[in-house]
């Protein structure tokens, strides 16, 4: 994430924020995450070391959002992804934020097949940028989307030859990428240091150039953008 984060005073105290379940097999990192979120007054209802424990904890505590590590025992491959899909199958609409040591666009696609609402997929190290991470967490908990810039970049690299994408101005490229990450208009405006009105204008222009119908809701917009990028990737060899 490219811009400098400015920590601002946040009152610590009794948990009054989101109820969270954390699944991460590395004990130190699990404790670090819990420490961080508790300090931010979030309610860490339970922590888990495996996908099974995570599913049980989600059943038991009905969190607002579940944070899942991708690689967990026993095979250390994609347990977290599968647990996320399973948890959302059992409780449709459950907000899930998947964290991973590396991001893979194919994992993102697998996650997004059940709809992009209330879904996040981020690199683990994004947690260190606490404010942005909390933003993403709240966005996901509120039914929005948080896709790692790295995933979006992978989609963009592979769709470089799409002729319609070439029609976009550099600024419109940036806006499209932030839209794909799941940011709303005002968040995009804040990132790019422009006004909401300017962002609105860019977005209309992008939809026009890519022949996409403008979607009003943010998560539907993310879906539209991601689908567009996916399709473009398939079209180009």
């Amino acid at each position, binding site marked *: 994430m490219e811009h400098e984060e400015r920590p*601002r005073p*946040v009152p610590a105290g009794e948990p009054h924020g989101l109820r969270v379940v954390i699944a991460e097999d*590395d004990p130190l990192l699990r404790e670090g995450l819990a420490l961080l979120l508790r300090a931010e007054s979030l309610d860490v209802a339970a922590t888990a070391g495996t996908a099974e424990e995570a599913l049980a904890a989600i059943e038991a505590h009905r969190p607002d959002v579940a944070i899942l590590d991708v690689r967990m025992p026993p095979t250390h491959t994609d347990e977290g992804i599968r647990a996320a899909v399973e948890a959302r199958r059992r409780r449709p609409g459950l907000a899930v934020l998947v964290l991973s040591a590396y991001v893979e666009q194919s994992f993102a696609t697998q996650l997004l097949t059940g709809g992009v609402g209330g879904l996040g997929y981020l690199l683990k190290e994004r947690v*260190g940028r*606490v404010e942005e991470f909390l933003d993403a967490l709240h966005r996901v908990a509120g039914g929005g989307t948080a896709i790692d810039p790295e995933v979006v970049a992978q989609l963009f690299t592979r769709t470089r030859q799409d002729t319609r994408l070439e029609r976009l101005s550099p600024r419109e490229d940036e806006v499209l990428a932030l839209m794909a990450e799941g940011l709303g208009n005002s968040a995009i405006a804040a990132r790019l240091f422009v006004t909401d009105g300017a962002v609105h204008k860019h977005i209309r222009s992008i939809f026009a150039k890519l022949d996409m119908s403008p979607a009003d809701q943010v998560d539907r917009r993310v879906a539209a953008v991601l689908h567009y990028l996916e399709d473009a990737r398939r079209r180009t060899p």
Partner: protein
Amino acid sequence: MVKGTATMTPDRAGPGQDDGSPAAARPLRAATAALSQLVGGLGTALTALPVLLLLAVTALTAPAGIGLLLAPLALRALHALARRERARLTRVGSEVVPPHPPPPTRTRPALADPATRREVRWLLRHSTAGLLLGTTALLLPVIAVRDTTFPLYWRLLPENATATSIGLGQAHSWPQALAVSLLGIGAIAVIVGLTPGMARLQARPGRALLAAGPEEDLSRRVAELTATRAAALDAHATELRRIERALHDGTQNRLVSVTVLLGAARRQVARDPSRADEILERAQSAAEQALAELRTVARGILPPVLDDRGLEGALTGLAAGSPVPCRIDVDAPGRRAASVEATAYFVVAEALTNIARHSGADRATVTVRNRGGRLRVRIDDDGRGGADEGCGSGLTGIRRRVAAHDGTLRLTSPVGGPTTLEVDLPCGA
């Protein structure tokens, strides 16, 4: 290494080999080995006779139908005898590679099978020439002893008894008796001079006809090499996966912890700077752990000491660092693939760590041998035993590593001890 060539055989004994015996004894030794080989051949040649008879009866009665019933039996007997001869020839000389797949025992495929036909040709030659050579070899020492010592007992023999072993002439006087003993000496000369050649002659049909055909041998070799190469690539991929996992799940997690804690610390500074130090302290220790993990991962790829000092040197270093007195006995000349040596090194390192921690042993022994293209590592201790792989020991990781190299690991640890860990690794030579 030297031991392997100490049992001299006519097939193996080259002129340049020196087994430490005086020059004069060498031909005698070669002759003895040749004689025993010829008599061994006589054994299979004698068995060849009834098998030949069985085959002949089978062939002759085939039109009457009885032969068809006999055929599987006869073929099985033929193959079994051929197998025995192959094993015998392999024991006394270079390997006789059996045909692959094994020759058929059913009549129709056997008639078309080249390996079976070659076995029949061998059977004919071995049951005749082979039998003759073997019998001669059995009789020669008898003749030599009987005739050489003839002057000692000729006067006790009845009149008109045949004097010589070969059945010619009679001895009536001392000069004649001495002449007979000259014949015995001649037999000794034949034994020393000719038996090695006779042994080769007797073995020749077997070596030529019982070995797999040249084309077949090559294709089998290719199949073997393909399999070993695939295994090697597999081991390589597993190794890479292990390293990737160690980096992603170990080192990177520590670094993520550092950034998470630093993020938390910055937020804490904004709220209450006095309490930020506690979090910074944790961040620092996470960074230190990341460094330690990185060192472990790098060392786990290839311990530098292995490259500098070789396997024996590296193991000696491990033993020197072990709190339990440890004797290192390495007899494995040459170098192997770095990954194989690294695996052997980690097996020993893990074993010594476990011995120091859990066994209560007074001493340990590490034995490393290189036999038949395999590296064998064995670690013994005199501790209390009862070692359990499941109980948080690093043995599971070691077993995975050994398996990645297509090797085997065996742990014997009865309660009360002693404990033995044996690892067998193909060297991929």
